[in-house]
Structure formats: C-alpha cells, structure tokens
C-alpha cells in the first residue's frame, strides 16, 4: 500500500481511498465487476482443471476462512493469528509514530538538529526495511522485539519526513501573530504549531501505516519469532503445506486490515481536522 499519488502528503489526502470506496460500494457496477472476476477465477480453475494444491477455487478459500476461524493452524485459530499480527504492528507503529513525529518536528524547528541528523537519516532511509530483519534477529533474538524493530524502521521515514515538512511549512505569519499576542513557546507549540501540522502529520501516518503493515508481513515471513502465529505465518504455512487456500485466505484478511487502517485514519483525520 506504499503506493499511489506522490509521497507529498497533500496529494495523498487528495486521492482519498474513502471517497473512492464510498462511491464504489454504492455503485452496482462495482459489485458486478467483482462478481465477474470471482466468476472468472472460478471458471479458470475448473475448466483448466488446475491442481487444487496450486490454485484453489474461490469457494474453497471462503470455506477455509470459515474453517480457520474455529480451528487451529500453528499457534491457534484465525483470531489468534490476527491478534498476534496486530500486536506486533501496533507495537512497532506506535513507536515509529512517536519517534518520527518528535524527531521530525524537532528537525523542522532546529536547523542544527536537521543538519546533524538528516545525513544519517538519508543514509539509512534507502535500505529496504526488510533488509534489517536478519540483523534485528541478531540483536533481539528471534522475538517480538525483532519484528517490532523492522516495523519501526519501516514506518519511521514517512512519518519523520512529513513531520519535518509540517514543521517547516508553518507560515511564519501565524507564529508571528501568536508572538505578537504574547503567547509562550509552549502555547505556540500546542495551539499553533500542532494544529497547523496536523494535515501533514496525518499524511505521514497513513504512509507509515502502509509501509509498516507491509513490513510486518515481510517480517513474519522472514524473521519469525518461533511462535508460529501471525497472518504472515499463515501465508507461509499455506505454501509450505501445499494448501494455497490458507495462503489466499490469509492474504484476504491482510488486505482487509490494511484497507481498514487506512480508512480508519482518514475518518479520524476528518474528525480532528475540521478546517
């Protein structure tokens, strides 16, 4: 979900998935189109007599989702896996959100901080987050910590960059107006800087959610913590046991959550930013 529009958060806000979803869900052609593709899927699998261990029918996938709900694979049922993934994701994301926002805002305000930290940041930024996975296992062991690290490293850059842009982008006129009225620095931060930065911050958070979610899945594939849990684990185990219906079922759940996060953030953004 890293994708789309620009990495400029203003443009991210422009192309809102929510509006697209709202309109699309309402339109009957959307459903028709989806039914069409599912039918194509079904027809191809059946007519070409594709081996069920290679590609299941849609029916089988749906059955599998239901089955996974009440039965165990690895550490538990579907709920267990969902919770495990969510736990990891939230851990890493919250850390990234906090660190990224603080650091980014600071770098935006303080030229020195910017000049000192930016080079290091630029260096690290171009390493695909998943490349850190083996190292993180070395540092944290095959554990929860290792996975959080990967998610953290992945969600940090967009959040930090957008916080930085936000801090930079505040019109000096606004700050001057507040100073003229006699506001203290903390008041300015709280009542001027923070609200002014919010649109950018949200943009960064949305991007961070997308990259973080992607990193979570990759981390569960590559840097398992041995607990045999998680949606990424389900994807992998499906392939290893030649049961692609599990894999596809897990992918669908992953996709649903990814979309839900994004839509959730957009709704939150609308609530908080009313101007």
């Amino acid at each position, binding site marked *: 979900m890293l994708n789309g529009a620009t*990495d400029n958060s203003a443009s991210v806000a422009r192309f809102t998935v929510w509006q697209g979803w709202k309109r699309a869900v309402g339109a009957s052609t959307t459903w028709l189109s989806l039914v069409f593709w599912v039918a194509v899927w079904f027809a191809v699998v059946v007519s070409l007599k594709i081996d069920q261990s290679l590609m299941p029918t849609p029916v089988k996938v749906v059955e599998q989702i239901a089955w996974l709900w009440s039965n165990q694979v690895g550490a538990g049922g579907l709920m267990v896996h969902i919770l495990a993934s969510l736990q990891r994701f939230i851990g890493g994301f919250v850390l990234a959100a906090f660190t990224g926002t603080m650091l980014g805002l600071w770098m935006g305000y303080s030229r020195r901080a910017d000049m000192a930290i930016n080079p290091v940041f630029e260096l690290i930024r171009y390493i695909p987050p998943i490349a850190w996975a083996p190292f993180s296992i070395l540092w944290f062991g095959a554990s929860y910590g290792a996975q959080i690290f990967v998610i953290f490293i992945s969600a940090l850059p967009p959040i930090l960059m957008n916080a930085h842009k936000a801090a930079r982008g505040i019109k000096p006129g606004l700050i001057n107006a507040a100073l003229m009225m006699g506001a203290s620095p903390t008041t300015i931060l709280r009542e001027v800087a923070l609200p002014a930065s919010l649109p950018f911050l949200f943009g960064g958070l949305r991007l961070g959610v997308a990259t973080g979610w992607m990193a979570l899945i990759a981390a569960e594939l590559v840097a398992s913590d041995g607990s045999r849990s998680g949606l*990424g684990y389900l994807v992998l185990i499906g392939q290893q046991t030649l049961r692609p219906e599990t894999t596809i079922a897990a992918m*669908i759940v992953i996709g649903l959550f990814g979309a839900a996060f994004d839509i959730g953030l957009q709704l939150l953004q609308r609530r908080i930013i009313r101007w």
Partner: protein
Amino acid sequence: MLSKTSKDKFERLSYAAVSMAGLFFIWWGVTALGWVSPFVLPPPWEVLDALDRISRGYMGGNLWVHFSASMSVVLSGYVLAVIVGVPLGMAMAFLPVVNRLFGPLIMILRPVPPPAWIPLAILWFGIGLSGKVFVVFVAAVVPCLLNAYLGVMETPRKMLDVARMLGASRWTVFREVVVPSALPILLTGMRIALGNAWATLVAAELVVSTAGFGFLIINGYHTFEDSIMAAAMFPIALIGAAMNIGFLILEKRLVPWRRETTE
C-alpha cells in the same frame, strides 16, 4: 531542506561530516574496545574485508554477479509493470468501461502488501527467477497504474478547452496536452514503483534465492558471517539511493517547467 548560499552549504557539509564521523567513530570504538560482540555488530574492518571477499568471489559470484542477479529481476519486473500499468491506468481514465471493469479489482488487490505474494509466487513458479519477477511486478504495477490514472484525470479542463478551441484533433489533444500535463504525477509514481520494486526484491531474496544482495544477507546470517550481512547492506542502500536520485534527475529533465519539487 536545501540552502543556496555557499556559507550555508559549508555549514551543512560540516555538520554532516561531523555527524557521520561521529557515528563512524562510535562504531569503530565500540567494536575495537570489545564492548559489543562482533556477532552483534561487525567491526568496520571486518565489513571492509567482507566487501573485498565478495568482490573477489563469494558464494558463486563476485559483486557483479550478485548485482546483475538482483538488478535483472528488478528491471524485468519493473519494465513489465510499466508496460502493463501505465497504459491500463490511462485507459481507465479515458474509458469508463475499463474503469468499471478493473477499478474494483485493483482496489481489492491494492491493500495486500507485495511481500504477501511471495509464498504464492513460490508455489506457482517455484524457487527460480520468474517467481521473484512476478512479485516485483505486483509491487511496481500499482503505483504506475494509479499515477497514470491520476495524471490523466487531473488534466485541467481549461487546457483541454484551449486545445479544442485551437482546433486540435483528439489524438493531438492526447499527445500534446494530456501527456505533458500528466507527466509529473506519472513520473513520481514510476519512481515510487521502482523503490517498491527494489524493496520487494530484497524481501523475496531473503525468503528464497541463490544469488543477489538479499541472498548475501540471508546467507551471511545462516553461516554466522555478520560482516557479510553488513557488507551487503551497503550496495543495497547505494543502489536504492542511486535509483531514486537518478529518477529525480530524470524527472527534472523531462519536466523542466515545474518549479516545485515533488519530494
């Protein structure tokens, strides 16, 4: 983040240099003094040595072999993604039928992270190259398509009116108005797609591969050679940076009329 005066530039450079030097000294000091085990943090000299070893031939190939292994997959998947994604995205913008047909499909597939496709690709294509090319394709196609679509949709109505007023045919309008207008957004999407492609390739190589930089990392991990792992991170970062910066330069050349930057 850039300043124009040379005094500013000097200041920036010196801060950067001090920062980097500081980090490097910490790295060196901490490992030289033995405060951190070389398993956790390979010392700079070991990493250098590892780079040297790789360049002379490691695990079936030298730097060039691993480089071309990784790059060939990325480029194949990426080119495929551009060839499929850009025309399809534009078609979706021009023809409502195409939009209604493919739109929902893309909206459904888009939130699924590319790495999630890796096991499926292994199942379908085996552990060879085509599976990785497929995953890279999936990673790159969506930004290309989406931004092609957006670029066309955001063509200002006024520009179209002007062209029609001047008497342009539909094909001329497409070639001389829609395409230049869409170019900035499209190029940004293609740049993001390339970044996605590279990151996904590394992920795929971590899962299964026999050559390439991701392979070096995971192999180094399995053979307890941290220095190899660390050494491989450098070319990965460098290539990622080079691709991004190269693309930005390309954008500047192709879109000289834009004053704002897109980053």
